[in-house]
């Protein structure tokens, strides 16, 4: 891990966490009409901190996952609010892309240095 950390900095961990959060938000959207389902999300800042201090992305997600507090409760006990989930999902997708472009920049810099052109 030590080499990849210096290579990609915070972005390697961020990409792993973003991908985990994508699956988490996809789960919420998939269960939008399941009675009794409770929407969940991670505290990204805390998870990234944990991943930075050496724990794996999985452990960081497990430790920081929590239930979403709905704006309005529904009769069937489902706490998925599609507007919220879709916004979060779109936001997370954009942030994933941002992380990808940071990584691309880092890789391009390295390639330039290696080739010496």
């Amino acid at each position: 891990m030590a080499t990849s950390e210096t290579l990609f900095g915070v972005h390697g961990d961020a990409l792993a966490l973003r991908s985990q959060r994508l699956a988490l938000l996809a789960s919420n959207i998939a269960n939008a009409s399941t009675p009794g389902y409770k929407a969940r999300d991670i505290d990204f800042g805390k998870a990234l901190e944990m991943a930075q201090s050496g724990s794996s992305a999985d452990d960081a997600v497990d430790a920081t996952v929590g239930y979403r507090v709905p704006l309005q409760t529904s009769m069937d006990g489902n706490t998925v609010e599609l507007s919220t989930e879709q916004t979060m999902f779109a936001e997370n997708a954009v942030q994933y892309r941002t992380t990808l472009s940071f990584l691309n920049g880092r890789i391009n810099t390295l390639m330039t240095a290696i080739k010496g052109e």
Partner: protein
Amino acid sequence: MSSPLSVFDIAGRAMSAQMVRLNTTASNLANAGSVSGSKDTAFKALRPVFKTVSEGEGIATVQVSSILTSQDEAVKKHMPDHPLADANGDVWEANVDSAAEMVDMLETARAYQNNVQVMQTAKSLTLDTLRLGK
């Protein structure tokens, strides 16, 4: 990702579940207004039961655990001229609420579209990740 359920599995299985729901709605609507000679043989509305399938912390998809028939009673109608009418001249109409089924259909279509959108986003992100460094 360590979880065996990928975003594609999650959205794909949710789409399958919504498809089952759409099929039951179609069956119910197709049989709305159909009549029968007795209370027991009258068509009963079908209801899919959704159940969460969990896989690890927070990662979950959905499946149809069973399809139940509605417990609402068939509607009795007095139609002595009907060929299926019983001794009292009654026929039994399916217990389908057309308006409720239409609303359910719209909700199902929305949910399905949402999952398609999730899958498209996941696909484009995965492809972008594959192109990393090129």
